[in-house]
């Protein structure tokens, strides 16, 4: 989320976001701040805090393009990319209007065929990075798939570990090896208001505060002023 806030501050424009497999408050912030041209995702939601208000309004006003998908189609498309094959099949989905809408999907022998998805950048926050350039994401293996599939991978991390995590049998299965990692940067509490399991919990109250504020353009602007644009406060209160 620190990178999302930095992108808003530097007024990024025309971003195309891919949800793996869904998008949340980070995407809503970027959309509200005018950074986004297109999203491809299975959903944009604030979870228990409800609808993503800036996304909802932007789509209703046709300010951004949406390529609707369904979660396993995105996973499968990234898996095709990580294998270096042009497409992969997937069960289910055929009765959905998504198949009509997605001209890049096709049906063959009763299976949906989705083309490989190769993002320009995989961007996420990790618990640890080490001196060898590896990052640890634990059970969040969809981040590994995204890193394998993407042309470049940028990672912020909570803490730096000494040495090489690949030498640790217990840590290694949760590691994305440096082969895939383009660059890392320290960002303590960088996932806030989201959780880093084992380090800090999700700040539900803040997400609810955002959901309420972002219901109107004015409220969203005030949120940005208070929590994103003012460098001093653009980080976790903890």
């Amino acid at each position, binding site marked *: 989320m620190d990178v999302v806030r930095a992108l808003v501050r530097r007024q990024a424009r025309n971003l195309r976001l891919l949800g793996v*497999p*869904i998008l949340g408050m980070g995407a809503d912030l970027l959309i509200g701040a005018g950074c986004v041209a297109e999203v491809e*995702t299975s959903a944009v939601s604030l*979870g228990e805090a409800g609808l993503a208000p800036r996304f*909802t309004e932007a789509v209703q006003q046709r300010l951004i393009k949406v390529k*609707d998908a*369904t979660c396993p189609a995105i996973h499968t498309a990234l898996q095709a990319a990580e294998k270096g094959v042009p497409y992969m099949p997937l069960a*289910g989905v055929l*009765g*959905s209007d998504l198949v009509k809408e997605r001209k890049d999907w096709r049906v063959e022998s009763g299976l949906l065929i989705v083309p490989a998805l190769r993002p320009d950048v995989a961007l996420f926050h990790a618990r640890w990075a080490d001196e060898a350039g590896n990052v640890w994401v634990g059970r969040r293996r969809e981040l590994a798939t995204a890193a394998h599939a993407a042309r470049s991978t940028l990672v912020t991390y909570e803490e730096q570990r000494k040495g090489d995590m690949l030498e640790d049998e217990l840590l290694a299965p949760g590691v994305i090896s440096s082969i895939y990692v383009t660059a890392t940067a320290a960002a303590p509490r960088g996932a806030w208001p989201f959780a880093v399991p084992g380090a800090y919990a999700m700040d539900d109250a803040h997400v609810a505060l955002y959901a309420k504020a972002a219901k109107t353009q004015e409220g969203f602007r005030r949120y940005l002023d208070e929590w994103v644009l003012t460098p001093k406060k653009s980080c976790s209160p903890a």
Partner: protein
Amino acid sequence: MGTYAKEELLACVIARLLGGARHAAIGASSPIPAAGAFLHQQKDETFRVSLQQRRAANPFTEGSRELFDLAGQGRIDVFFLGGAQIDGEGAINLVRADGKRFPGSFGSAYMYPVVPRTILFREEHSRRTLVPKVEFVSARGTPAALLTGKALFSWLSDKRCFRLESVHPGSSLADVKRNTGFDYDAPQYAPQTAAPDEGELALLRGPVASEIAVNYPEFAGRIWGSARPAAPTHREQP
């Protein structure tokens, strides 16, 4: 009979629909289905419940695609889906209706046709939500049941339509008819949905509330006040 919340009634109805099932997966933002599943688990220890968005001890170690891979193999036999609109053919719409944008299809397009027992759940029972035909088909499949805030419907496979099974306390046959936008099979007299008994309420307010409080703190707080989150050791494994 003491008083109970509407959500507690709905969780009880869900629990009663789970007989004979081995494994239910619960998707995003579904506290009532989750409560129903954990209630059923209190009565059947071998019943497994996998919360997709479980905050601690998440059962999926291959990332968020593992849920869909499990379903594809037939290892999940119950899933819950909702919709901004649900129609008389059981199709659901999570994308757009009446000029409004909703979050998106999530994994529904895949899960609905793939999981054998899909239970449709939508608390709002109105002509806005229960429509003759959805504006966009996110997913299509064969539903096991449709549960709303007013009634429980089963699905007649031969006629391909819903059948009214019971009407919740506080509603009536006429009320259900008035608020349902699609045609359904209705008996002359539909029984009233059985209210939660003392045993069910005790389980809901004790172990189930603790389990729900970990993952749906806002919901648990609203229904059960200060429900104490369960200790980090989870009794999810049979």
